[in-house]
């Protein structure tokens, strides 16, 4: 009785030779207009773009979009990702024609409006992080990390402190941290984490030495708890001559409450697409500005916005000769930064502080209620930060139901699954981050869904293995995807 299943063809399958969305193309020019271009450099066959009508394109991508979960439609408690409401006002402001039309190389005389926003954003970010300098250029968290670690390297090099070849990273850290260290030419040494989620301080002390360039960590950590020994850690690393890097992915937890600068961090990146509520766009773009303490200021990536009297201007490598330089062609993800600027202006001083408070409230509430219905906390003795870890190790052992099964089943309850299997040190885990923008009722619905699923796990574990049942596709075969690579569509003959 299901009628037609609305299978989604590829845009290429809709293509017909000679069809076109004519309103979009300028009138064809005579080949004469191209006479200047040598024939040997001309392409011989038209590129195989789809030949479709405008309505087909609109309908295809509108329908495709409906096959996504999204904040605008569902609760999306992905730990470490801060999936909060993305204000529509920020989108409108950033899409103003004056902003969209500005060429990145427009002269400063024609950029004062834009530069004013960027300058103020730099100041705001210094304020909320307690750092002394900020560069907005990194295009995502990982590029911010890169900038940060590259600055650590530049700092040591500038002091001719050459033996520092290692970056220390707690084992709970996000994958970008070790990958970044390697991209910056460092070796990575992982530091173990205690049973209660804090760094193993003795192990850290043992690992520190003259080879230590720095430590990358986030606080609260990706274990979802605040690292209580932060003072001791800072002392240890600084004592060994290393610098302290703060991965700002978890800044939402402490926004306005605790400032990384005050905790002793020398350099920090922020994920504006998390803490500052800019959208994730199905994978990006983001924005990962870096903030630094006084001693790293000379090394900030360029360009930066400066102010001479009432005029804003770009500071580039001429002004900052020790800068690690440009990490992209222009100045970063300006459109994302404008959204973050809007957000900061609307929240203001008071609003910033509330972010940390209410995201922490939501996480602790959710944790306690989930524990009450039988979920196992990874760190039951600890306060949750803005997120927390559950482990389904016992369900896996006793019922054969994995965290993945539960995650997939949640989709059937119209809830996006939390982050699964991260951090790696906690088996069968969920990292859950509800954010401050979700109502208590929404949290309660998630709790209800989890309660039902736990019951299903006991009564009918096999059923969970088949989940999801209500999505456009059933569970997908990842192994086949990797083994029989199909990355590009080829027309069947």
């Amino acid at each position, binding site marked *: 009785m299901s009628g037609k299943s609305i299978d989604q063809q590829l845009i290429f399958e809709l293509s017909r030779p000679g069809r076109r969305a004519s309103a979009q*193309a300028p009138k064809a020019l005579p080949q004469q207009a191209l006479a200047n271009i040598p024939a040997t450099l001309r392409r011989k066959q038209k590129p195989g773009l789809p030949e479709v009508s405008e309505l087909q394109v609109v309908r295809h991508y509108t329908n495709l979009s409906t096959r996504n979960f999204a904040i605008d439609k569902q609760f999306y408690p992905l730990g470490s990702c801060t999936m909060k409401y993305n204000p529509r006002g920020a989108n409108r402001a950033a899409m103003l024609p004056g902003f969209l039309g500005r060429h990145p190389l427009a002269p400063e005389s024609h950029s004062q409006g*834009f530069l004013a926003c960027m300058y103020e954003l730099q100041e705001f970010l210094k304020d909320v992080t307690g750092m002394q300098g900020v560069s907005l250029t990194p295009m995502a968290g990982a590029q911010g990390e890169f900038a940060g670690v590259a600055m650590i390297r530049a700092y040591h090099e500038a002091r001719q402190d050459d033996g520092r070849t290692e970056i220390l990273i707690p084992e709970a850290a996000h994958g970008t941290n070790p*990958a970044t260290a390697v991209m910056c030419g460092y070796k990575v040494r992982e530091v173990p984490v205690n049973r209660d989620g804090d760094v193993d301080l003795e192990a850290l002390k043992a690992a520190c030495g003259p080879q230590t360039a720095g430590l990358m960590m986030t606080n609260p950590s990706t274990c979802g708890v605040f690292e209580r020994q932060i003072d001791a850690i800072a002392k240890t690393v600084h004592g060994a001559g290393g610098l302290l890097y703060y991965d700002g992915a978890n800044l939402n937890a402490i926004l306005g409450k605790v400032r990384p600068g005050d905790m002793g961090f020398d350099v920090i990146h922020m994920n504006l697409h998390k803490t500052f509520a800019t959208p994730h766009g199905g*994978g990006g773009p983001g924005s990962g500005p870096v903030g630094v303490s006084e001693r790293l200021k000379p090394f900030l990536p360029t360009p930066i916005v400066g102010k001479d009297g009432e005029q804003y201007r770009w500071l580039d490598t001429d002004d900052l000769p020790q800068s690690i330089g440009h990490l992209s062609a222009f*100045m970063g*993800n300006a459109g994302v930064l404008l959204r973050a600027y809007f957000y900061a202006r609307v929240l203001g001083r008071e609003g910033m502080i509330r*972010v940390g408070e209410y995201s922490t*409230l939501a996480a602790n509430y959710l944790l306690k209620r989930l524990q009450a219905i039988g979920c196992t906390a990874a760190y039951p003795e600890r306060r949750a930060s803005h997120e927390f870890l559950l482990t389904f190790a016992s369900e896996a052992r006793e019922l054969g139901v994995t965290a993945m099964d539960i995650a997939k089943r949640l989709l059937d309850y119209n809830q996006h699954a939390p982050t699964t299997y991260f951090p790696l040190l906690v088996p069968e885990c969920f990292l859950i981050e509800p954010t401050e923008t979700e109502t208590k009722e929404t949290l309660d619905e998630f709790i209800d869904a989890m309660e039902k699923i736990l019951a299903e796990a006991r009564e009918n574990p096999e059923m969970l293995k088949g989940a999801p049942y209500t999505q456009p596709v059933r569970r997908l075969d990842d192994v086949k995807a990797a083994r029989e690579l199909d*990355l*590009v569509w080829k027309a069947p003959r």
Partner: protein
Amino acid sequence: MPYIPHTEDDVQAMLAAIGADSIEDLFDEIPAHLKAGQLKALPEGLSEMEATALMAARARQDAGALCFIGAGAYEHHIPAAVWEIATRGEFYTAYTPYQAEASQGTLQTIYEYQTLMARLTGMDASNASVYDGASGLSEAVLMALRANRKSKSRRVLVPRSVNPRYRQATDAICSNQDVELVEVVFDAASGLTTPAALAAHAGDDFAALVIQQPNFFGGLEDVHALTDWAHANNMLVIAVVNPTSLALLTPPGEWGEQGADIVVGEGQPLGVPLSSGGPYFGFMCCRQQYIRQMPGRIIGRTVDLEGKPGFTLTLQAREQHIRRSKATSNICTNQGLAMTAATIYASLLGPDGLEAVAAHCHANTRTLVAKLTAIDGVSEVFSAPVFHEAVLRLPRPAAEVLAALAEKNILGGYDLGRDYPELADCVLVCATETRVESDLQAYAKALQEVLA
């Protein structure tokens, strides 16, 4: 409390469930001396109305000039459908598609994008975007070092005619891994990278040669000869291309005998607004044999439990979240939404439409050059054929002339003196399909006045 939904009742009920007396209690694990005081730089919060009015006034301040700057970012007509669809909440507010079953929209879009880019560049595979063209080149260089089994060198040949911003970013990024970019001079007459210039490096061990087409001066390199030379010298070829131009020009996959090995470029011309420099997206394609060395997300088509086709992240063992320090790159968040827009854009334009856009850009730039060089003292610098940019020599320092033009609300091009001291009186000009005859005339008139 903007964007925070909790009522006083909610807060009380939640605290009761937690067993805490106040929100402040929830921070009791944080050493007291670390607690922040008041924020200072941040002003009081504004309403959406106020913040919008503020930003609208600022946006207006910067608007209204007639722009002839290209230099890596190009104004094109963007069909209204592109961003009306891309900003639908389902695309705009979704995360990276980690839960494939709940993300088929994004995943299929990426698979279509990969197909599109592979076809446009003539390559076998594409990833789902890197940050931008410049950082994309750095990824390509690192990839070439991993991929080129015949070379032990950490050196790469990069012509000076390659976008200087790309060279700077690549240097800033790759020098941390002791990679050296070795410059190749360009021919002063043609503005191209010539076999003669390369000959100096023949037989040396380089991991790759970078070829930009069109090059930074807008000129069309002899990509076939360059590619073959590199391959003959055991180097991989990294192509840096403008996607619009590919509607007209030989795709890198067909350069020379064997084609380029890795292709990167700035995706912005495909439906992404100038927007002060970002978000754009870098595209990255390669030959089949190098896929496992490619950084960034890649989507594969597979089947579900019932055998129905579907899409999912694949080859994740290259990525940081799986391989951590052994990953091909640290990239995680990419430029997904811009890539989505590009996919919609390319579908709306189609092969003929994109070719028409490219042809109009070329023709407009040629017309502009003709008009400007008709002015006393203005001449075209290089002899090579161009795509949609050209270098003009002025009778006065470029910076000075450009400033005078800007006062007339004309942004007259890119001051090449910023990167090439020998071209301090030269501008790089660009006129895409968005410029009409009267715009070109306005520029010529203003320049005439400025130089008079």
